Every structure is written in C-alpha cells, then in structure tokens.
C-alpha cells in the first residue's frame, strides 16, 4: 500500500489514464459531455505519454498516418468538447461526430445510468419507456459514437446493483451488434468505483480485471447485477488496482487540475481544491 491519501475520483482518473496508456494505437482521445473524470484522465495520460516521448500512436486515418510519416504531431491528442479549452473543433457540434465517423478518434468515454452485462448502456431513464419512473438527461451521442470509436471505456462511479444491472431498461446504445451492422467501434473496458473490468465482444461478457484498494471480489459479486468472468486462477488471481503514488497525485493536482478546471470548474474545485 502506498502512504499517499487520495480521493475516489483521483483513483478513477489514474486508473483511466493507465488504461489509455495500455490500449493500443491511442493517438486521439475525445471527451464528451458531462465527463470531468474522463477529461482529467485523458489529460493525465497525454502528459504521461509525452514523458515517454517517441513517435505518435495511430492518430487520424490510416492513410493520413501513413502520409504523415513517423514523428509528426502529438504523441496523444486530447479533445474536450463543450468548452473553449482543449477543444480543437471549429465546425460546430457536428464535427466531433463526423470526426468519429471517419475513424479519427481512437478512444472515448461513456457513462451510464444503467450498464448491463452485455455492455448495453442506458443514459435515458429507468422504467417502462416512455412511461419512465426516473428520467435522466438523455442518450447524448452514445447511439452513434459507441459504434464508430474503437476503444470506448465505460464509467460508473457508483458501483451498485442499481447501476450495474442484469438488463438495462432502455438501450441508448447496444454493447454489441450482429455482423451485418457496420461497427468498427465498441466497448473495451468498464471502470467503476470498486473495480476495473474488460469487455470481450465475442463472448459478450465482462471479465474482472482488478479490484480497487480495500475492495474484495466478494464485494464485486454482491454489488453487481450481472454475471461476469474471473481471470484464469479464479478470485485469488484478481490483482488490486494500483493506487496513485505521491508523485502522480502531485502531478494530477498541480498540472491537470488547473487544466480540467477550464472546462469543469465546479468539479476541479471540489476534487482538487
């Protein structure tokens, strides 16, 4: 265990950042609406990737990358919509989606008021649509970006059976699609307040990848509404999610905090003070 103390949000941010650095060919991360934790994670991953130097990963289209040649541009590009900072889009609200549709975005984050074991997500509401019991803001761009961005990372800060359900009440966007549907994108992972999971589109199932410090596999079973797989070796083989050390936390608070505050001032004030 590390001696550094951190907030739950900070563990989520560093876990997302590590995930982004581990996934292959992440040249361009985009961050959508209402996403301060993913935004901070993407900026942190960008800063860590820059430390390593080297050539950029596969940003932009495949043909574009081939034309650009090695060593051009950023190692990791981060685009955060809805603000004036870290927002490269100059062609209006459509551009994020057009960009994603062309394959120019490698990773994206989606939340869910409900997420089920097949990685179907519901951002719209609970109950029997349209007679909803509880209404949430709505599906945003999920019904499109989930299909076209290759590495979608799901997030659920609240890890309960209320959020992680056996079957979502409304499918804002499906986790998998039949073969005839053009779908270069989809879910790769899920990070919650208690654990990280990987998703396999072939089996349509999540595998528990790590539990956050202080959480047991038993806790995950008790608080998850869907069935999931364990790694080879069973419950004892599930590692603990690495906690951020003092140096990483300092970097997050002093460098990334002020940057994400430009888009999410209330979040930055609450988490980073």
């Amino acid at each position: 265990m590390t001696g550094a103390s951190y907030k739950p949000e900070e563990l989520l941010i560093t876990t997302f950042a590590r995930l982004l650095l581990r996934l292959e060919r992440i040249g361009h991360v985009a961050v959508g609406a209402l996403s301060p934790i993913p935004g901070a994670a993407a900026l942190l991953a960008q800063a860590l990737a820059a430390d390593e130097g080297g050539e950029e990963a596969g940003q932009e289209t495949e043909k574009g990358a081939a034309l650009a040649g090695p060593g051009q541009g950023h190692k990791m590009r981060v685009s955060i919509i809805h603000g004036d900072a870290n927002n490269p889009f100059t062609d209006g609200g459509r551009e994020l989606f057009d960009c994603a549709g062309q394959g120019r975005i490698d990773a994206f984050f989606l939340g869910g008021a409900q997420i089920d074991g097949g990685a179907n997500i519901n951002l719209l509401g609970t109950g029997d649509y349209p007679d909803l019991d509880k209404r949430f803001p709505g599906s945003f761009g999920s019904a499109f970006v989930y299909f076209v961005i290759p590495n979608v990372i799901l997030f659920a800060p609240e890890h309960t059976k209320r959020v992680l359900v056996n079957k979502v009440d409304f499918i804002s966007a499906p986790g998998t699609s039949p073969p005839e549907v053009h779908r270069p994108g989809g879910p790769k992972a899920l990070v919650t307040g208690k654990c990280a999971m990987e998703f396999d589109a072939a089996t349509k199932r999540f595998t528990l990848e790590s539990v956050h410090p202080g959480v047991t596999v038993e806790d995950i079973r008790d608080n998850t509404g869907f069935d999931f797989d364990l790694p080879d070796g069973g419950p004892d083989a599930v590692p603990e999610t690495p906690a951020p050390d003092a140096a990483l936390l300092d970097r997050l608070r002093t460098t990334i905090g002020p940057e994400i505050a430009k888009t999410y001032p209330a979040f930055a004030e609450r988490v980073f003070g």
Partner: protein
Amino acid sequence: MTQFEDLQSLAGRVPHGALVALAPDYSWVPMALVRAMIRGGIKELKMLAVPIGGMATDLLIGAGAVASLEAAAVSLGEAGPAPRFTVAVETGALPVRDTTCPAIHTALQASEKGVPFMPLGGLIGSDLVENRSDWKVMDDPLGEGGGPVVLLPAIKPDVALFHSPKADIHGNVWIGRRRELMTMAHASSASLVTVETIEDRDFLADEETAAGTLASLYVTAIAEAKNGAWPQGLTGHYDRDADHIRAYAEAAKTEEGFRQYLEGDVLEPS
C-alpha cells in the same frame, strides 16, 4: 432585408406553436430573448435542442410554453439535472422525441441541402430507433454491402434563436467558431438574433471576420441585448454565472421555487 428592432419586438416575432431551434448552453444561447418570449406569453412551442437542451429549455418548459421537445439530452451541466424538464417528463406532461446528437445535426444538414432525408451510421439496435416511427431503417440502397443504415427525415425549424457578440449594420452576424449556429440558421425558415453591439462596418469586407460570419441572407431580425446570454457565458466577453445557475437549479426543483424564480428574474424585465 434584415430588420433592426428592440428585444420585445424581436420576441414577438416568434409565433405560438413554432418549431424553435436552440443551441446548447455553451453556444451563445439568447437568454434575454427567451425571457422576453416568456414575458410575451409565448405558448405551444415545439422545441428542438441542437442537440442538447439546457437552462433556456428548462425555463420555457417550466413556464408552460412548450408543447413538445426533440432532444438528445437536457441538462444544466455542472449544475445538475434540468429540474422542470425532469418533472415534466416523469409526470407525462411533456411529450419528448428522444434522439441522439448526430441525428439532429444530420437532419439539419438535410434541410441545409434541401433534400428530404439523410442517412446516418450507428443507431441500429438502440431503442431510440424502435421509438421513432419517422425514422426508417433500410439496407445500403447502393448495394455496396454497407449494411443497414437509418434514414432521418430533414428537420426544418420555423425559427432559429441565438445570441452573438456582434452584428454589422448590414445584418451580418459574427458567430466565430460556433458553427452549429450557422447550420441552425441555414436550416431554419427564419433566424432571430440578439447581439451585444451593432458595428458600423461590413464583416464580409474583411477576410478575417468573413469566415466566421453568418450572412444577413439568413438573418430575419436583430435586437441589441447587453449581456444577452446571461447567466450563460459568451466566449471572450463574459463567463457563465455559475452561482446563479446553481441557485436556479436548486429553486426550480419545486414548482413554487420555480414560480418565485420566474417572478423575480424573468417576468420583471431587467
């Protein structure tokens, strides 16, 4: 030609029952104009969020001015859920045509081009599609093996409403990089715009301003409204008034709190 007039006259141009397009809270929402419309007793509006609704939409819903809404989401951002929207949907008082962000952008682009529909990828298997009888799923009509696509009917708003830092005396409006406003205006039958100032020059005569300018061709009428986006922000001019928006989010949780807000901050012209 583009008309120049006062705020209340501009508000009076919006007919009851109109299909009204509004951009998200970060995109120069004409809050002063929306308040003027509520003061004028506007009703039966069909709202189109392009593509996300915020405080203006919530105010209009709470004021009883909205008959129906098409949106990808409605939220007050960091201030939390949009309270009047949430209550209206949960009680069944407000019919919503739920959609997804790029579907709205695409349907407006169809109107820009004057074609009856446009295709969009993704979507297949979302319950949104099941619940939109006006959308049509078909196999790649070119037979190139592209798989099923969704055809979206063009959306042609009666009127687009937005705020901007400046217009020129010819009725050209500067929109900078807020190009969803350009799309909205192109697709709509009329555009009503409020601005901080009207400048005695021609934005189209200067290449640097021309690229970020919506030509008067699309602009029906303009009114000056100082701080016209408040409590939302206006890029390069003033920040979002987060305290005010948070106070609204809290007050509007109850019908009584919303009524008090309406009487204090909307019905009393500021």
